């Protein structure tokens, strides 16, 4: 078993001092792996990622319990830009491109922590190699390109800091299935180059297909974890997240039963 890169230990996150968003999330990202974090709207996927990148502070949230370790160091109090320097970078949900900057300028913002401008040029080429689609759009304003292209810009921007771990928040949001596959294929390629991923997704089918491991999260708790392959096989996961039942219809009684069973992981 390889070394663990990110270790989230039973964290609790509270927004505005009152809203409890996470109530005990434990999660492990091994070096060189892709881990998917699955769950419905409002289950706490984004909050988990933002707790790791420490952007929760910017939304008046705080990690009140538990610990987050990256590369063996506690990062709960680290400034976001220092984390980026250390190799953890988040790609925000909904892409958040700088709409009034060109595509190339957008990508270059990711190199802010790079001191050497020559390296930045190389990295820019690397980004274009991975995302061929946006090479031809480099002079257009990021606000005017398509959603898929924006997702690529956001990911390319994150890649500029040469991260070891990318926290990818819902890359599939609002994209055509074909583009979703394309984006995940790129994720896989980057993974082969040694970048680890923690991907929050609603599209469980695609996310599990490309991941090594998966976590199911519900109401701010991890309710299930396992190898992605095994999760794809489990009947309850199939039913709830993949939309393919074992046979015919299932009654709501069974679904309720499934909900009550958490926390179910061992």
């Amino acid at each position, binding site marked *: 078993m390889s070394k663990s890169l990110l270790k989230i230990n039973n964290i609790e996150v509270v927004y505005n001092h009152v809203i409890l968003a996470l109530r005990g999330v434990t999660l492990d990202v091994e070096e060189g792996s892709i881990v998917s974090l699955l769950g419905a709207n409002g289950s706490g996927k984004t909050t988990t990622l933002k707790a790791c990148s420490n952007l929760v502070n*910017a939304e008046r949230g705080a990690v009140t319990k538990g610990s987050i370790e990256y590369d063996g160091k506690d990062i709960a109090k680290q400034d*976001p830009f220092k*984390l980026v320097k250390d190799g953890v970078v988040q790609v925000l949900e909904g892409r958040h491109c*700088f*709409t009034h900057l060109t595509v190339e*300028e957008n990508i270059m913002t990711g190199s802010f922590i790079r001191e050497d401008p020559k390296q930045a040029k190389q990295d820019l080429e690397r980004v274009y190699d991975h995302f061929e689609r946006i090479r031809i759009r480099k002079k257009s304003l990021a606000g005017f390109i398509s959603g898929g292209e924006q997702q690529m810009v956001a990911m390319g921007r994150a890649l500029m800091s040469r991260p070891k771990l990318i926290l990818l928040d819902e890359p599939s949001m609002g994209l055509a299935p074909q583009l979703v596959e394309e984006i995940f294929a790129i994720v896989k390629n980057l993974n082969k180059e040694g970048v680890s991923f923690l991907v929050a997704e609603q599209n469980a089918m695609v996310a599990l297909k490309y991941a090594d491991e998966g976590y199911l999260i519900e109401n701010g708790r991890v309710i299930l974890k396992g190898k992605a392959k095994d999760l794809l096989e489990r009947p309850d996961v199939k039913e709830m997240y993949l939309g393919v039942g074992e046979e015919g219809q299932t009654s709501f009684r069974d679904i309720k039963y499934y909900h009550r069973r958490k926390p179910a992981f061992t």
Partner: protein
Amino acid sequence: MGFDWVYLIEVLLGGLMSGVMYSLVAIGFVLIYKSSGIFNFAQGTMLLFASLTFVKMTENGIDFWTALFIAAGVMVIFGVAIERYMMRPLANQDLLALFMATVGLATFQEGFSQFIWDSDIHGLQMNKFLDLQLLDSAPIFVVEHIPWLDILLPKFDIFASLVAGSLIVVLAFFFQKTKTGLSLRAVSDDHMAAMAVGIPLQTVWAIVWAVTGIIALVAGLLWAERVSVSFTLIEAVMKALPVILIGGLTSIPGAIIGGLVIGVGEKLGEIYLGDAMGGQGIELWFAYFMALMFLVFRPQGMFGEKFIERV
């Protein structure tokens, strides 16, 4: 006698030169607005504080360049302090809270300048310090080499617009071509995303407030030559309000062109529309009138950022 073209050119040039001064003040507003999302109410008092610091030092026998350097240093420290003690605690709070904080900052700065310096009216004459041909005793510059162009221009206006113009060029270069400039534009576009890609928000804010402080110093000195270092300086800044309304709060080119439009507009209005619109003195309110027209017909200003929405 036909239309006096030479006179028109003279009026235009005069307007452009006072316009550059408005632009300089307006850029200070735009910078803060772009990076922090608020209208900086304390801009005027920053001008006053900066120029007062400078003037008091020269009155105490410190020479021009040293005083300028120290005053710039003080403004940079002030900018960093504002970031540390005002922006940082209020980050991610309601924008109105931040705006009110700048109102408080204005009040504080007004009292603070009086407290450490004084509330007297100080004259400022650049030609006491700078031995430039442009600033010698004769205050009027006469175009001599072009025979048909017989115009008179105040020398200080030429000097001031040169200084302001070159500062604007330097700033434009800084924001369009450097890495820091790029990160500032990124921050102004999307705070959250800027943080996510590793731009230290606090550093960018500190830089912006420091730069604004230096702009305030230069603008303050150039204005002070005309209106003296006193509370009237704060009012001089109010002239920049119509400028940013016309140019757009979010656009640096807009602030520059808005300033020029206001400068030329009020001079032309004064000369050619003055009699028709109720006598002399419309220069005082003509700028506001123009701004009002813009608010009615084009509220985002000439160059204000359009809201980009994908369909």
